[in-house]
């Protein structure tokens, strides 16, 4: 069996279907988007070749695109902070309790299996101003003026609220991954640290967390990638608004291509998203050692 897995033909047989699907749905799409980005096209009718005009306009004149890049980066930072580090914190707390662990684990995981549309609907109702949602109702007990607090329609905070909702949905997923990694840390390592006089806090900080560093890096990369390409939460919750206050690169691309019917321009935004994702991903791998120490 082991011998068979060593054969190049067997390896090829396993890799080829995935490669074929990946090429058909990802590489071909990117190439097509790249092709369309050189045209002025409404999606209907004739395509007019414009060369690099879309890119020049995007990079030199489009203030909204620049703001969406900034928004996406903020959005990504919030998501990494909550999903990865929040998930790690929850996993540590879970690993410390004995009773009700499974129930809590299941409870935290529920948002992961609920669809994004449903999550956005739930938060729209929870954060509603008229009629007063549960959040504002509770806050109004502290300060009555908070009853009219606008969460989704306030341009100052709508981006953070959107990022929080996405982070809330996936927190449970990373918590489970971290929990699995934490219980895989050999007990003797922790015990040795405790015998050497380490506190529980130090045991986690210097023994358990460094032990699962590759998992942390992998999760960071996953969240980073997911957040840079995030679309549905901003689109469903705020439509990128008010104005462009919570507009992300992806929602902007969608609006340009499908609302403004500028397929060519939308495609150039899509190509920029690919480039930005690749650059951020490569920089992250460079700074974290690219997983070489795994």
């Amino acid at each position, binding site marked *: 069996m082991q011998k068979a897995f060593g054969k190049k033909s067997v390896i090829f047989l396993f890799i080829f279907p995935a490669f074929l699907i990946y090429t058909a749905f990802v590489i071909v799409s990117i190439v097509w988007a790249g092709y369309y980005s050189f045209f002025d096209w409404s999606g*209907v009718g004739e395509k007019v070749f414009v060369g690099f005009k879309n890119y020049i306009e995007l990079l030199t004149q489009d203030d909204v695109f620049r703001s969406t890049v900034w928004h996406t980066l903020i959005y990504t930072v919030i998501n990494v902070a909550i999903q990865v580090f929040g998930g790690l914190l929850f996993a540590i707390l879970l690993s410390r309790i004995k009773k009700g662990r499974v129930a809590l684990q299941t409870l935290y995981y529920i948002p992961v299996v609920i669809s994004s549309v449903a999550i956005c609907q739930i938060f729209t109702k929870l954060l509603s101003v008229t009629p007063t949602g549960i959040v504002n109702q509770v806050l109004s007990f502290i300060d009555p003026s908070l009853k009219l607090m606008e969460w989704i329609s306030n341009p100052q905070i709508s981006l953070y609220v959107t990022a929080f909702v996405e982070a809330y949905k996936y927190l449970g997923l990373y918590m489970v991954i971290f929990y699995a990694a934490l219980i895989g840390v050999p007990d003797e390592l922790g015990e040795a640290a405790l015998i050497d006089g380490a506190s529980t806090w130090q045991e986690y900080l210097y023994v358990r967390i460094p032990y699962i560093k590759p998992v942390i890096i992998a999760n960071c990369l996953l969240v980073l990638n997911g957040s840079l390409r995030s679309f549905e939460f901003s689109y469903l919750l*705020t439509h990128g608004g008010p104005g462009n206050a919570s507009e992300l690169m992806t929602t902007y691309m969608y609006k340009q291509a499908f609302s403004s019917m500028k397929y060519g321009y939308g495609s150039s935004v899509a190509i920029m998203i690919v480039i930005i994702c690749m650059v951020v991903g490569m920089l992250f791998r460079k700074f974290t050692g690219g997983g070489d120490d795994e």
Partner: protein
Amino acid sequence: MRKMKKVLSLAMTAAMTASLLTGMGAVTASAKKSDDGKRTKITALLKGTESTEQYKTFDYLLKNFCDEKGLDYEIELVNDMQDYFTKLQMYINSDTLPDIFGCPNGTLSKACKDIDALVNVGDELERNGYDEKLNGAIRDFLTDADDGNMYLFPQGLYCEYFMYRKDIFEKAGIKDAPTTWEEFEEDCQKIADQGEIPVIVGGSDAWQLMRYLSFSPWRVTGSEFIEGYQAGTDSFSDNESAKYAVNLLSDLGTKGYFEPGFASVDFTSACNLFFGGSGAIFYTGSGQISLAEEMYDNGELGFFPVPDTEGMDNMSTNVPVHAGFAEGFNKATYDDTMQEFFDYMCENFTDACYNQAQVFSPFNEELPEGLPQLYYDTQPMFEDAETAWTSWDDKLDSDVMTKIVDEQQQLAQGIIKPDEFIKTCDSLVKK
């Protein structure tokens, strides 16, 4: 070499499977015919769900017609507006439009016309004699701006008006419904002073706020302003009625006349709010009669048309009338059976409108008995209307439209001032 051949054969198999799947998609979209060349199926692409008017009307008509003729029918539904437009565009691009398809009068109907995919509905109505029965405003709404023909069939007749809560008006000391925007704002202030929400609006749905931007230019110029704006011959800064509308929307939003958090309330939620007992005034229309019916019959609600813009010449039509989403008939698949269906549809459309979809019929026919009282009371407002509502989303370029939608929300929320709005919007079109 052998390995290479294997790889190639695998790739070809994948390509064949993909082309088969694509082919299947194309068959679904076009008219299905049996071996002897006779039609076996009628296909339709409609916007909405099984509970929306367009589906209810066409499902009823197609079912009865197909049962009679021994045909099958298939209705493809897409609920989200953007998804629908994308789907329709795909069908236009691949020239595989279904027999009947929902299509607004504007960019998309023009794209269909460019590939000669639209039956001249006006000619067909003239042929079967229903031309004379068609409401004048509906004809105006669906008339093609380029050649004056009518290529789309109305979804129904929709009229829009403001509904108000009589008890709140009474409490605020308002005796008569407002007839000018100045009175409208004064009444809003009186209502707000009573601690009530003056106006309910579904601000997250673009069209709701856009109505307040469109009212004044429509009453004063008809479709002239928006067509001129798009063509670059008119602008918000040059047109007094447009400037008036910008200030009106800004006032209503920033003076707290709209409900708190209105920018995140969609139209469905706004309906639930108003008909659930919140707010004094709501811009609604014949599409929501079923929701208003009970309160209206109990004498709790009244209605009034779009107020006049004071100091300017307003046209006499003050009730926006439109044809809804409208439907196109695919010219390439419009055979004798489809023509027969067209005639059947015209004969039974009024019945389908009132008994299935609960909307006004676009044909001037007598209202059947047993309808909610609001039908009978509002019908005189538009019976003789000859000028249709001008829908900005039909007239504006998609890109300009998208940007104005973003700007209007900021204007209503007070994030930008009227001057900034005017400056930005005027820069969106080339003069």
